[in-house]
C-alpha cells in the first residue's frame, strides 16, 4: 500500500534550550557533574590570576613620582617606565628631532588604515601612497640630511621606534620576496627552481642569530676597505631575507592547496602565466594562508628583539639597559612586564586583524 503525505509540516522555532542565556549556560557549563566541577575550577583559576595581576599592576602600583624613592607600593612601580618613557619610545634620537618620528609613524598609520580597512574600496591610490610615498618620506624624515633636516645617525635610533622600523621593513620586503621565491620553487625551469630551493633551505637551516651575526660582524670583513654599510641596514637585510625564506614556504603551502583545475581554466581562457598567478591562483592561495602568514609576521615581530646581539637598541634592549641603571635598581620586572605588554598589544592586534580579514574574504565556497 502506498503511503502519501498530503499535508506539509510547518516550520517551528528551535527548542528553548538552544537559544536563551539560561539554556546556553545549562547546555555548555552545567550539563553534567564533571562539567560543573570544571566550570567552577576554571572560574576560580581565572579569578585568582586576574585579581593578582590587577593588584600588582594597578591597585598596589605606584604611578606618581619622579625617582626610585617614589616606589613605595608592594606592586609595580610604573614611575620607572614614566621616567624613561622618551628613551623607551625613541632610543637616543635627539629630543628636539623626535617630532620627525611622530610624523613618519602617523603617515604610515594613515596608510595602513586606508589599505587594511574597508573605508576606501579602490585601493590603487592608498597602495601608491603606502608603498611608494610613505617609505620615501619616512626615509628622509628619520635619517634626515636633506630639506634642512639635521642628520640623525641610525646608531641613535632605538626603542619602540627601532623595533617598528625593523618589523615593518622586514614584513614589507619578506612578503613579496617570499611570494617570488615560492613561485620560483614551483617553477618548471630547473635553474630558477634550484636557486630558490637552495636559498630557502640555506636560510631556513640556520638560526636568525647566526644570520644577524654574519650580517653585522662577518660581512664587513669580506668587503673592501672603506666600503661600509650601515649596521641597521645590514640587520634589515638579514632579517628580511630570513623571514622571506619562511614566508616562501608558507605561501608555497597555500599554492599547493589550489587545484590544477584553476590554472587550467585560466589557461583555457587565454590568460598567461603571470595573469593566471596574479588574478586566480595567488589571491586564493594567499587567502587560505592568512593565518600562517600572520603567524610568521608575529614571530618576525618578536624576533626583532634578537638585534640586541649585534648592539642595536630596540625596545627590549633599551629597557634592559635601563634596568642596569644604578639609580633604578630592582626595576627589571616592571621593565619586562611593560615590554611584554607592548609586544602583546601589537601581536594581538595582528591576530585580530587576520581573523577579521578571513571573515571578510570568505566567499561562501567554504563549508
Amino acid at each position, binding site marked *: 500500500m502506498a503511503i502519501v503525505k498530503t499535508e506539509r509540516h510547518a516550520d517551528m522555532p528551535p527548542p528553548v534550550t538552544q537559544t536563551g542565556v539560561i539554556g546556553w549556560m545549562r547546555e555548555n557549563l552545567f550539563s553534567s557533574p564533571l562539567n560543573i566541577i570544571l566550570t567552577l575550577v576554571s572560574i576560580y583559576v581565572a579569578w585568582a590570576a586576574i585579581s593578582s595581576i590587577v593588584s600588582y599592576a594597578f591597585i598596589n602600583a605606584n604611578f606618581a613620582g619622579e625617582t626610585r624613592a617614589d616606589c613605595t607600593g608592594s606592586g609595580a612601580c610604573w614611575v620607572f617606565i614614566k621616567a624613561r618613557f622618551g628613551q623607551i619610545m625613541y632610543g637616543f634620537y635627539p629630543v628636539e628631532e623626535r617630532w620627525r618620528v611622530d610624523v613618519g609613524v602617523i603617515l604610515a598609520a594613515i596608510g595602513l588604515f586606508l589599505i587594511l580597512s574597508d573605508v576606501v574600496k579602490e585601493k590603487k591610490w592608498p597602495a601608491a601612497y603606502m608603498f611608494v610615498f610613505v617609505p620615501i618620506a619616512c626615509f628622509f624624515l628619520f635619517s634626515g640630511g636633506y630639506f634642512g633636516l639635521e642628520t640623525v645617525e641610525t646608531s641613535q635610533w632605538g626603542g619602540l621606534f627601532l623595533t617598528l622600523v625593523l618589523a615593518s621593513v622586514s614584513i614589507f620586503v619578506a612578503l613579496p620576496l617570499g611570494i617570488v621565491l615560492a613561485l620560483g620553487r614551483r617553477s618548471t625551469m630547473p635553474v630558477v627552481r634550484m636557486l630558490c630551493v637552495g636559498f630557502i633551505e640555506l636560510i631556513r637551516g640556520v638560526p636568525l642569530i647566526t644570520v644577524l651575526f654574519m650580517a653585522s660582524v662577518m660581512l664587513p670583513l669580506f668587503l673592501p676597505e672603506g666600503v661600509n654599510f650601515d649596521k641597521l641596514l645590514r640587520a634589515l637585510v638579514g632579517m628580511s631575507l630570513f623571514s622571506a625564506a619562511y614566508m616562501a614556504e608558507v605561501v608555497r603551502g597555500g599554492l599547493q592547496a589550489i587545484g590544477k583545475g584553476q590554472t587550467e581554466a585560466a*589557461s583555457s581562457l587565454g590568460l598567461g602565466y603571470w595573469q593566471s598567478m596574479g588574478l586566480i591562483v595567488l589571491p586564493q592561495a594567499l587567502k587560505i594562508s592568512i593565518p600562517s602568514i600572520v603567524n610568521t609576521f608575529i614571530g618576525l615581530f618578536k624576533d626583532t628583539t634578537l638585534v640586541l646581539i649585534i648592539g642595536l637598541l630596540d625596545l627590549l634592549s633599551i629597557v634592559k639597559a635601563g634596568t642596569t641603571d644604578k639609580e633604578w635598581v630592582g626595576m627589571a620586572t616592571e621593565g619586562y612586564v611593560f615590554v611584554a605588554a607592548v609586544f602583546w598589544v601589537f601581536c594581538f592586534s595582528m591576530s585580530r586583524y587576520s581573523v577579521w580579514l578571513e571573515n571578510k574574504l570568505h566567499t561562501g565556497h567554504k563549508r
Partner: protein
Amino acid sequence: MSEAAKKNTQEDVAIQIIGMHKWYGEFHVLKDINLTVERGEKIVVCGPSGSGKSTMIRCINRLEEHQQGQIIVDGIELTNDVKKIDEIRREVGMVFQHFNLFPHLTVLENCTLAPIWVRKTPKAEAEAVAMKFLERVKIPEQAKKYPGQLSGGQQQRVAIARSLCMNPRIMLFDEPTSALDPEMISEVLDTMISLAEEGMTMICVTHEMGFAKTVADRVLFMDAGEIIEQAPPQEFFENPQSERTQLFLSQILHNA
C-alpha cells in the same frame, strides 16, 4: 600540401589532427590520432574511462602536450610557440567536468575576467556581454553571487557562459555533466543543445547518449588511446562495426 588544399583547410576545417601520438612517461596514451573537424560540426567522443578521450581534447588547446604529429586549429599549427598557443586558446573555449570556476570572484567577474585582461575589452562592455551570455544560460539573477553559492548545474552553466564571453569559434566539453546530480544534467544539456543549434563547432566528451543522438554529426568511439570507430549517430548506435564498440554500447545502454 597543395595551395588549394591549404586554402580549403583554412576556410572549412576547424581542427585537423594528423598522426598525433602522446606518451605519459613510458605509457603510450594516444596512438596515431587522425581527425578532421569541419566548421560547425558537432562531434561526440565516447569510450571507456582511461581510453584517452579527455587527453585528446586537452591536446587541442595545449593543456596537454603531444609529442608526435600535427594539430592544426583554425589554420594555426600548435607548436611550442607560446604566442600561437595563446592565440589558439583565445579561439577555443573549454568546459570542464568540475567546472573550475574561480571561487574568489563573483559569477559576473568570472565571466568578465578574461575579456578584460586578455582581449582588453573595457569593463562596462565586458559586463554587458557577460550579462547577455548569463541570460542565455538563464541565470542572470545570479550574477552577483559567488560560485560556491550556486548549485552544480548553475555552476556549469556559468562555466559555459564564461567560455562564451571570449567569443570562441570552437568549444570543447570535457565530460560536462559527469559531476552533476541527475536532476541538473538536463539544464546543462539544454544549454549545450541551444549552442549547437546556433552552429558552434563543438567537441564533447560525454556519456550522454541521448545528447549524442540529438546533436552530434559524428560520434567517435575511443579505446586504449585509439579512435576505433567514427560514424553518424544513427549508424553508430544502430549498426556499430567493431566488437569493442558493440560491447561498450551494450554496457552503457543496458545501464541506462
